[in-house]
């Protein structure tokens, strides 16, 4: 049977980010912009019972330009992403 298939997309998918860290692993520079303030920090550990466990350390930061950005370090993949939380 001729089927036309489509894939539903994710909304707010994480995007890779360039992050330099300071003491304690907090972000110092995000996408080549200096971090002025770390407003909040939290962790999400979920789906540890699946083959795709989630271990993220989120930071909500204020950049030099005044923008608010949310970044997280993926503990499984050991890299940084930006995402609207």
């Amino acid at each position, binding site marked *: 049977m001729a089927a036309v298939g*489509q894939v*539903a997309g994710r909304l707010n998918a994480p995007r890779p980010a360039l992050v330099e860290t300071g003491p304690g692993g907090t972000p110092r520079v995000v996408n080549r912009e200096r971090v002025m303030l770390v407003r909040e920090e939290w962790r999400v550990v979920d789906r540890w019972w699946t083959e795709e466990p989630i271990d993220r350390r989120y930071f909500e930061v204020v950049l030099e330009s005044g923008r608010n950005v949310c970044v997280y370090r993926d503990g499984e993949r050991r890299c940084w992403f930006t995402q609207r939380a």
Partner: protein
Amino acid sequence: MIACLLIPGFELRAALRSRPRIAVVPAALAPEPGREQLLGPVTAAAEAVGIVAGMRLGEALATCPQLVLVDPDPAGAEREWEGVLRRLEDAGFAVDPVEPGVVAFETTGVERLYGGVESALRKALDSVGPAWDPRAGAGQRRFVALAAASVARPGQAVIVEGKEEQAFLEPLPLSLLPLDEGRYAELEGLGVRTLGSLAALPGGAVAERLGQEGKQAWSLARGGERRRVRGRSPAAELAEALSFPEAVANELTLRRAFGALLDRLLARPERAGRPFRKLALAARVVGGGSWRRTVTLRDATAERGRLRSALAPKLTEIPAPVVELRLEAVELAEHTGQQLALVPPEGEETGVRLREGLRQVRASAGGGAVGAVVEVAPWSRIPETRALVVPRDV
């Protein structure tokens, strides 16, 4: 002649196509969720250890603890069955499918093409392919053809000539008749164990004792009615599918996705304005199983609202989170006159304007530019799983 082609345990065979190793161990088709806990078809290895189709699940597991339960895959079975039917149609047979694994057809039209009934049946068996272990039977009546196919070995064709019908049917067991389990026991209690002994009873007495069902069985035991087999009308080739990045169990999301599929199906140019007579809603569920429901509409229609109210309630019957949702137009009706409404239903005009607006956006921004945001799990701590974008290209 009327011919019947039989593939016993078709659903199990279809489910084992991707796992051929299980075919050689004791295995059975598991009961569908929410249905009575009775086994479906079983493998030969299961039969050898005393497991039979229709056995209670608990009893079967007690008899054979190593029994492998195969999840039913009705959508997969339907697809495979459609493939079998198409191969038969490609070989020139006008098929009348009875159920997955059983199909009837007339050989009269192809006998000269293939050089006789036997050659035509051989051609039918070859076109289905040896992997399915098909068997064929032919007779002057449909039930005789079915009975002949039931006694044939895999790959064999049994032909019963008109004058041999009664002698052929007489020794066959009652299990060939479409009767309830209790009826078999009742008949056996009366000493009736073969089709011949049932056929020998007076019809009136059978009807009095067993009712309409018994009367039909008695009629079949005598060969059944002489009726021509009418080939099916060509199946529609229209289907739309939507895959989700992760399994969805939320009814609202499924309803939105279904709405998008319905819009796309209605917009397919191959439909050429014809209304739908029969539709199927299928889902691939998490863990590899599938689910499928077919809905035949009393009045063929292409009205979005009516199709939605006929099909959307079925979404609640899906037993597990869905990985892919699929909507198929199984049969289209010919053009029929539509009674126009004096007052259009509320919201219809807004809907038409909205669709026109979306069409303009798509025309200027290209395909894939229009999507509907569907909340899946707004409470989730993982931001990207809170909502999905479902394409709305129509």
